[in-house]
Structures are given as C-alpha cells and as structure tokens.
C-alpha cells in the first residue's frame, strides 16, 4: 500500500467515498495507472458511512435537475452492480405515506413528479392497503405512493466493494493521505500535493464530498460554490424488539425527505434523518434536541415506536452545495456539479453530491468517464478487466450446512468473536487482509457489522483489538477505533510510571 513520493499516475481520484470509489471502479476498466487518495484511515468514513442506505426510485428530485437525471439513470444499474460487486441489495420498493387527508394531494403530486422524471413502476395505494402492508402504521394513514423500484443496500459494503474491484483491476488506494494542493503546469493540473508526498497524474478528479468546495477553490474553479453540511441524526433499533420491514417516507418538506422509518438489510429498523443545516463540517455530535425531533418524526409514521429499544445512534453530514440547476432557467440552487471546467485542464470537478448521491454514484461515475472522453481523453479498455469483486463469507447469514463446511475448511470461522451479530475470527482476519484492508476497529465493524448489536461491542472489543494487533504485527497500543488519535489503550496495568497523571 505504501507509495513512494513523486509517483506518476494517469488518474487520481480525491476522496474515497461511494462516489470516488465508484469513479475508481469505472476508470479501472481502462488502461492507465489509477490512484485513489483518502484522508481518513478507511474509505467511506464520511457521508457514505452515515446515511439511510436507500437506493431511491427518483420521484423526489426536481424535474430538470442533475439530481433527477442521475437518480433515474442510476437506479436500474444497481441489480447488475450488486451482482458483480457482491454487496447486499434488495429492491423492496418504498412508500411515501400520507397521514390525514390533507397530506394526500402532496403525495399525489410526488407521483406526478416521478412520472415527469421518468420513474417506472409507481402507483397510489389506499389506506387499507397500506395498513395491511405495515400493521404498525399510524391508523390515520390516508393513502401512500408505492414506488416499486426503490431499494435498500449496505452503503459501507457498496463503497468497499467498488474500491476493492478497482484494486483487483490494478488501482492503488492510499489511506491517511490528505489532499493539500494541486501541482500546476500552466493552466493544467498535473498532480496533487498531500501529507504523504506529491503524486502526478494526467487527470485529477475532485470527489472530496463535504470538502469538495475547498478542493475546487484550490483549482480556482467556482469561487462562489460552498458546501453547507446538512446534519442528519439517526437511531438504530434492536431487531429483536422492533421489526419494520418496509421503507416508509413521510411527505417531504423543505428540509428534505423527512424522517423515515425503514428496515435495513441487517433487519434493524432505523429512524432518521432530521436535516439541520450547520456550519461546522466536523460536527457529527448527537444532540438532545435532535433525539426528540427524531422520535416525534418517527411516531408520525409508527406511533408504537419506543426509544427503549434503540441500540445505537449515528450522525451523517450531507454535502449540500449551492450549484445552479443543470437545466438552465429553472430556479433551483442545490444541484450537483459534475463538470470538466473550461478554465482548467486535466481536472474533473464534482460538488454538492448529497442525497440521492449514493443511488446516483454509478451514473455519476459513468458521466465522469463520458465528460473526460468529451474533453479528448482516449480511453483504451483493458482486455482482462474483471467486473467481479468476490464476496466473503458472512457466518451469521449461512445455513447450518454451510457453516459446517466453512468451519471444516478453516477453524477460525468457528470462533465467534461478536456474539450479538455472530461475526467470527475468520471473517475479521479476512477483512484485515482484504484488497482494501480494514486496519481499524470501525473499518472491521463497517464491513462485518460486528459490534453493532445489543451489547455494542462490550464483549468483542478487547478481542478485536488483540486480533488486529496480532494480524498487523503491532502492539495493541497502536490499534485505533478510526485512525490516529483514537487509540484504545494507554499503558499496561502495572506500568504506573508511564501514566500521564496530573
């Protein structure tokens, strides 16, 4: 994984979120040296690690916006993508639920908007039908929009799988590598300066998520463009106590799609997000007000929800930009920016890729390649490009017979480390040595779902730290939760003299 300074690449992607990983995967089809840099200790740690995990049908974005175009173009790509990259994905469909008669026209309007966007497979269902599909729904339900093409996925695994597929096809992923500035030759970008040295390339792609504004400003592009984080807080519920299988949206408001109640592929129900616009791009703190807001919002759909059964919360920031609408003449100022700016050569600029960014990622990757072609890049397809990223065994989801075979092959799979989610030592070790390796506790957690259950890592934490230290050949003091500064251990119990106690 270590790259020496001053290496030469053809393409550099800044940012290892789902969009950056998907762009890397698309570029890995073509000849050329490809590098993805990520400032954090793992890929997918920003917006891609904390969202609602929904593959949207496409009725929500404003007709004529790039958001709508990308969403509707990307949605049908997901089945093939899930098959090739081996991540969990299900087309469960989703519902926008009207509570009370006064909300019904709003939902019907959404149906019309979906039709305008070109979304297939939508229909209105009546209150009785909605009640029969979700028995815990608010009894005041008056009807719902049912979008059959809506889906849910595991966004961490999508990001990891896309990046790994790029690595399998020759790409390099550098973690803990922070973009600092561009290297120029006239008005042409020829590389990037990072905390780990300079890297040269013919093309640099800005996929820096919440910091994409800072990156494009360094390129002198769109000085007026700014990202305002929209903060989404969430609760996760214990699957043993709360079972909501459906994806349930309330009617949208000016602040976004509203607070959802939705099942996940891990069968835990999640509630969220609220969507307060904040200034601090690092503020992922949970607030008391946010918790109250979530509960009120969720109870509008499922009145019986009880916070006692929540097992965790998380916060995600959406990179809301102020890009003008893709279609000229429409008054809309939060659209995606996806462009090859005319003022700079060798630079692809992305910004404001908020929801439905996860859904749109494959279409965005395709559009980036097309824009580069339009700008004169002559791509040569690799003859041996492998579209497949092999999946890895997940013990918890196997049958008794499959487990028996796996344990006979490798006894490390028989050793359960996370007892709530049934994650084994074999799975942990496999992730530590994967094509995009997991070197922190959270990286393993995101890939295996370990430590996310009822005991919230109480049992597995000490064991995972020991396994990481053993596999990486380092001291347990070097093991972190999510990168430097988040170490677990300070000293041995008996070495009081090294204690920094005042």
């Amino acid at each position: 994984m270590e790259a020496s300074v001053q290496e030469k690449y053809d393409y550099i992607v800044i940012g290892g979120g789902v969009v950056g990983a998907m762009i890397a995967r698309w570029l890995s089809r073509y000849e050329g040296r490809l590098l993805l840099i990520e400032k954090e200790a793992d890929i997918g740690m920003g917006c891609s690690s904390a969202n609602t995990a929904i593959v949207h049908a496409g009725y929500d974005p404003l007709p004529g916006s790039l958001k709508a175009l990308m969403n509707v173009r990307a949605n049908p790509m997901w089945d093939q993508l899930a098959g090739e990259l081996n991540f969990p994905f299900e087309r469960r469909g989703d519902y926008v639920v009207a509570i009370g008669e006064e909300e019904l026209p709003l939902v019907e309007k959404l149906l019309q908007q979906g039709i305008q966007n070109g979304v297939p497979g939508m229909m209105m269902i009546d209150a009785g039908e909605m009640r029969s599909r979700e028995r815990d729904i608010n009894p005041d339900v008056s009807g719902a929009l049912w979008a059959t093409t809506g889906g849910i996925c595991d966004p961490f695994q999508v990001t990891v799988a896309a990046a790994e597929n790029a690595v399998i096809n020759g790409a390099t992923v550098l973690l803990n590598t922070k973009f600092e500035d561009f290297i120029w030759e006239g008005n042409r970008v020829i590389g990037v300066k990072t905390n780990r040295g300079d890297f040269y390339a013919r093309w640099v792609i800005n996929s820096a998520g919440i910091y994409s504004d800072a990156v494009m400003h360094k390129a002198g592009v769109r000085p007026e463009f700014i990202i305002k984080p929209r903060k989404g807080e969430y609760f996760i519920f214990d699957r043993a106590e709360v079972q909501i299988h459906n994806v349930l949206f309330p009617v949208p408001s000016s602040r976004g799609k509203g607070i959802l109640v939705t099942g996940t592929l891990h069968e835990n129900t999640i509630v969220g997000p609220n969507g307060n616009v904040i200034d601090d791009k690092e503020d992922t703190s949970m607030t008391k007000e946010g918790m109250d807001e979530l509960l009120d919002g969720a109870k509008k759909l499922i009145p019986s929800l009880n916070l006692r059964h929540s097992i965790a919360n998380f916060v995600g920031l959406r990179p809301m930009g102020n890009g003008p609408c893709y279609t000229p003449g429409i008054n809309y100022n939060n659209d995606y920016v996806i462009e090859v700016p005319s003022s700079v050569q060798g630079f692809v600029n992305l910004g404001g890729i908020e929801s439905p960014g996860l859904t749109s990622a494959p279409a965005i990757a395709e559009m980036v390649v097309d824009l580069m072609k339009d700008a004169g890049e002559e791509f040569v397809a690799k003859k041996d490009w492998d579209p497949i990223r092999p999946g890895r065994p997940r013990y918890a989801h196997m049958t008794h017979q499959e487990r028996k075979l796996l344990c006979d092959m490798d006894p490390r799979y028989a050793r359960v480390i996370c007892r709530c989610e049934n994650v084994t030592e074999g799975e942990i070790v496999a992730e530590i040595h994967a094509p995009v390796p997991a070197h922190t506790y959270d990286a393993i957690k995101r890939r295996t779902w370990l430590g996310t259950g009822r005991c919230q890592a109480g049992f597995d934490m000490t064991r995972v730290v020991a396994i990481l230290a053993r596999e990486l050949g380092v001291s347990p003091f070097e093991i972190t939760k999510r990168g430097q500064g988040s170490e677990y251990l300070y000293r041995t119990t008996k070495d009081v003299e090294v204690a920094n106690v005042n």
Partner: protein
Amino acid sequence: MEERNYICTACPMGCKLIVRMEGDEVVKILGNRCRKGETFGRQEAIAPQRMLASTVRVPNGFHPLLPVYTKGSIPKRKILEVLEKIRDVEVMAPIKAEDVIIANVIGTGVDVIASRDMPAKN
C-alpha cells in the same frame, strides 16, 4: 461523648452504625444487625481495616496478570504501601489458587495469596 456514623462493610446488608465514643474508647454500638457489625464498628472507630485485591505480573502465564488478595484484612492506612509491594512482584506460572505470593506483606502478619489457578502459556 462523641457519636460517629459508619456504614458496615462486613456483608452486603450495609447496616448504618452509630458508634458512641468516650475519648478513644468505644462505649456503645447501635444499628448493627449482627455481631460482625459490632466488631466492624469497633475496629472502624479505632483503626479501620480492609481486605485488598489486586494483580501481579505472570510473564509466562496463560494471562499476563494473576489476581491476588490479602488473606484477611489489613490496616486501611497501609493499603497504598501494600499495593506498591504487589506492583513490584513478578511470579512464574503454574500457580495454584491460595498459593502464597507474598508472605506477611510489609509486616502486617497477612499473606497475599493467589485468587485462582494460573497455568503457563502454551
């Protein structure tokens, strides 16, 4: 006459004791529900005693630390000194529960003993 209040730690009941003192002499103990409480109250008023549990290093042990405890209570004011002593000790596995790890620790007349068997690392 002076009255002192203690919570008895002789068992989990946690009786609230009132110890009446005449100078350095205990004259009456109230609030205890058993004789252990009386003994505790008297001791607590004059020279408090505690049991102590900690760990010592076992470099070749199945675990790196062996839990140990004082076989009997020691003066409370000596605890930090005993802890210092325990911290300096290193033992080798295998160990059996109740093996003496430090005999008559700092002259208290009380042994520090092993709390469990500790096999050697395999």
